């Protein structure tokens, strides 16, 4: 593959811009009264510049991937597209964060700085062509998230979430690192690009190699933890619920997508030759993830926990795209990218509604408190309804196409039984999404459900919700907008 050589820093430009913006936000946030504004502007400018930088790295049709920094970074449209999806998640985190930072102004620097740093970590994961770089990216993503989860220092639940996430995250990272070491033992390299291309390494990827098998398994534990796959998912509901809601929104969008992008690069691309070895276990994990999450979600009464289980369930569905990758890498990459974009929009919007609701009431947002929302706040109920229908995969929303394409890829790759199980799971999932809609539109508000305060305006949070809902519908009506770009991104993985 061609190499950037001395021009390598170009490939790292988006990460560099974002890191600078993060540092400016972190430092600027401490500058007294003006601090929050500086942090906010810095993060917005940083995100905008990074987006522009990513756009300039977008390669023309038919181009080949480029390698940089002695083959440890890969620059292809797949990574660029994925990075853009992470930026989308960060933008929503910034917009929704406004609502939270109103009451916690002195945290503005930390909030913006850490969100941006985590995004840098995600981009590193998406562009990594080396397992060590991927690990660095993962850690750069994780550590800010541990802090963000515990941002509300006086809130016991937030503290608990942070500590739990940190302990389990360290546990997961340990597996990941051990896995990389074992793989290095098996192949003599940590470069994914070598594992794809070098025929000598094919031998090392054979079923006969214990190091490889154990290494791949441990890698799967580490990445599966970040992606929230069963049985490494148990932290998700507790952390999403305990963390400040804008942070939950952020965790549900970018980091999850980053984990899947890495999973795709490792299993869908580098280990594709050994597919018959890992297909079975990923199949089982996909089924377990969807089923466990959906069944558990049925009994949830609290909206944030419900959304947490919903995000686990979606992770199980996205796994289908990874499973299909060895048969049709370009197509399944396209389906995966479309899915993570649609999913980021839906989840950011849905958590946004929780943010908005929490401006009116203290503590947990139960589904019961949504009763009668349609008559109190018809606009907000409509947006939430759109997002719920999209999450359930009802056409013509983006969520429908996301599911449809992943299922179609899985079918083409021969996973008939898995697809049927996934469709059954979608039906089960519709039950709890529709319960939210039913509460909003068909149930009257009881005396206990009345909000304690008038809805206080938080323009940027409301804008974020509407943006998410509108994009969900727009992409649903004109899926080609995203799908064509995703296709160009996937085509470069061939």
């Amino acid at each position, binding site marked *: 593959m061609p190499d950037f050589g001395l021009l390598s820093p170009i490939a790292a430009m988006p990460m560099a811009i974002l890191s600078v913006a993060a540092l400016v936000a972190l430092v600027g946030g401490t500058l007294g009264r003006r601090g929050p504004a500086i942090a906010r502007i810095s993060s917005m400018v940083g995100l905008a510049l990074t987006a522009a930088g990513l756009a300039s790295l977008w390669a023309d049709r038919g181009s080949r991937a480029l390698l940089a920094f002695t083959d440890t970074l890969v620059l292809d449209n797949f990574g660029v597209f994925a990075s853009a999806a992470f930026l989308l998640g960060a933008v929503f985190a910034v917009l929704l964060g406004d609502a939270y930072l109103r009451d916690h102004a002195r945290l503005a620097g930390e909030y913006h700085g850490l969100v941006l740093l985590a995004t840098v970590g995600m981009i590193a994961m998406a562009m990594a062509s080396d397992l060590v770089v991927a690990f660095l990216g993962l850690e750069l993503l994780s550590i800010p998230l541990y802090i963000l989860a515990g941002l509300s220092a006086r809130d016991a639940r937030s503290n608990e979430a942070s500590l739990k996430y940190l302990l389990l995250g360290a546990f997961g990272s340990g597996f990941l690192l051990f896995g990389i070491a074992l793989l290095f033992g098996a192949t003599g390299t940590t470069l994914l690009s070598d594992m794809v291309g070098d025929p000598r390494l094919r031998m090392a990827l054979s079923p006969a190699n214990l190091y490889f098998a154990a290494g791949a*398994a441990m890698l799967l534990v580490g990445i599966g933890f970040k992606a929230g796959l069963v049985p490494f998912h148990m932290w998700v509901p507790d952390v999403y619920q305990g963390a400040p809601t804008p942070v939950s929104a952020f965790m549900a969008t970018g980091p999850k997508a980053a984990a899947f992008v890495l999973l795709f690069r490792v299993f869908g691309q580098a280990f594709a030759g050994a597919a018959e070895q890992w297909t079975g276990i990923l199949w089982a994990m996909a089924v377990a993830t969807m089923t466990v999450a959906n069944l558990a979600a049925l009994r949830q009464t609290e909206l944030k926990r419900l959304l947490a289980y919903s995000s686990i369930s979606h992770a199980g569905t996205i796994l289908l795209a990874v499973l299909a990758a060895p048969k049709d890498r370009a197509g399944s990459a396209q389906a995966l990218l479309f899915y993570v974009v649609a999913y980021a929009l839906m989840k950011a919007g849905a958590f946004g509604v929780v943010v908005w609701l929490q401006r009116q009431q203290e503590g947990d947002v139960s589904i019961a408190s949504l009763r009668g929302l349609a008559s109190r706040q018809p606009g907000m109920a409509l947006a939430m309804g759109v997002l719920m229908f999209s999450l359930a995969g009802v056409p013509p929303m983006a969520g429908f196409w996301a599911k449809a394409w992943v299922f179609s890829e899985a079918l083409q790759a021969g996973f008939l039984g898995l697809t049927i199980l996934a469709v059954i799971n979608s039906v089960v999932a519709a039950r709890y999404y529709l319960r939210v809609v039913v509460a909003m539109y068909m149930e009257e508000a009881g005396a206990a459900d009345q909000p304690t305060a008038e809805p206080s305006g938080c323009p940027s949070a409301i804008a974020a919700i509407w943006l998410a809902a509108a994009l969900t519908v727009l992409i649903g009506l004109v899926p080609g907008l995203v799908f064509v770009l995703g296709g160009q991104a996937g085509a470069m993985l061939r």
Partner: protein
Amino acid sequence: MDFLWTKHIWLIPFWPALGALANGVLIPRARKTLDVVSTVAIGSVAMSFLCTVFLTAELASLRIGNPAPVEYFRWIDAGDLRVPFALLFDPLSATMCLMVTGVGLLIHIYSMGYMAHDPDPGRFFTYLNLFMAMMLLLLLADSFLLMFVGWEGVGLCSYLLIGFWHRKESANRAGLKAFLVNRVGDAGFLMAMMLIFVTFGSLRFDEVLSNAAIRQASPTMLFAITALLFVGATGKSAQLPLHVWLPDAMEGPTPVSALIHAATMVTAGVYVVVRCAALYSAEGAASALVAWIGVITALLASLIALAQTDIKRVLAYSTISQLGYMFLACGVGAYVAAILHVVTHAFFKACLFLGAGSAMHGTGGQTDIRKMGGLAKTMPRTTVAFWIACLSIAGIAPLAGFVSKDEILHHVFVSTYAPARTLWTLAIITAFLTAVYMFRLFALTFHGDEQAMKRGAHAHESPSVMTIPLMMLAALAIVGGLALGLPYPPGLHLLNHFMRGWLIIGRHHGAEDTGGLGLALALAAIALAVAVSGAVLAFRFFRGPYRRVELLQRRLGFAYTLLSRKLYIDELYDIVIVGPAVGLSRLAADVTDTRGIDGIVHGAAAIAYRAGEGLRRLQTSHTRVYALAMLVGAVALVLYLARGMLF
């Protein structure tokens, strides 16, 4: 061709759609007062009316040819089926849109007064605006498919508005009946659409309705298409044998009856036939079918109207009868006359319904004409408007109803279709009956014997927001006919002039033998004589003591019962269709569904719930449990991946 408005046809249905969106969703419930919602609704229809006027003015200034459809975006693009979202504003849709938005505007204003005491004006105006948007989409669509969207949309709104007072059992039943009967017609329309696509390979008007394309189609296929389209039209326009829903539809609020079930939606069937004039002109048998169904419906409906006692039901049967006239006109190829009657009918029938609504408003919701009477004293404005509309529909010269009906009768008489004289005779009998039942209605409601006069003394005149639209419609019912369709000299027939470029030459156009001025005058004289005698006879008889009326009913015996029971058609349908269908559904619902399918579904749901409960217990929130789960998972993964070496 570079006009200001030409490209902006979309604005016409856009405004009411926006109004419906605003009233339905965007305005919070707390702010939905009558003032707000009615202002939004009336404003949106007024905007739509203005846009239509501007577009029509531009269209009229076009000297040559027909305007091309305006394509907005690719709508459906699946294999051979390519349908763009395109709208067409030609003389036909212009005329219909002007009528719909104009009459619609007046009825919207009237509704503001009529619905003043209703608890939910927001819902009412939302539906009404949605109906306007759908109706205009139906009229402006450039393809059968887009037209069908509007077609189904107005059907939905009709259902919603008939059942508007949904706490009333009878209103719900009526809504359901209208919807189900219309489904029969819709099925016909759908099948026609499929056949059109199979035959012509397209659903766009310019590709289907061109003479070149039609010449290549087989006559059998053409007959099937036109006949099935007509089935759709009989459903929507309440013709025999699918007319049964319209009288029941009177359960809805009176402005709805005026707008949807008299002036606009029910004429959609006529519009479809006129729009497809090229197909019908090429296919004689289907045209004959249209003519015969039209005239038989006209006659039977006017007979039934004679014996009804509910003021709105009389008007409903009158609508069915008048729609029959329109189809009769279509059947003999007099398409412009049909459209002229659509327009004049909208004027006088909307006026009649709004007058009836005003009378009901003034008497506290009374609809039984035997218990009304004497309103002429207390409700003078309503009385005058209603009287004018009665004269118009009865066909008294030179009012609008006379002009358009006379034109239809004339075309029927000179038609080259063999049994034209029979058709004409039936139509003139209907004209006589029309005058009789309308003046029976007028006499019983507004005059009556001494007792009736006493009853009317307690009524009160409606507010001006209701009477002013009434007056305006009455004025249109006077001048509308002569203004649009001056019978002589031929050059001054405005509608003919406007539509001349559009008109596809049918069987009876072009070098048509009109029989000269003498025949025209003679026919007009006969029609007028028949109308006047019917009106005078009925008015004098029904104004007298009600005892005489009851005596006559007893004398007529079974004949009267037959008519008052609407020829027992509803009962027949109940036995032949509804009964077996309900029985079958019961079987499916109670046995197959409840015991079979529901059992399985509920069982599965219960299992899922229990499983969820179990999983929830596992989620203990103890970190060590979570770590243990991860460890177990990791061990399982390693064992699985390394299975080759270990076992």
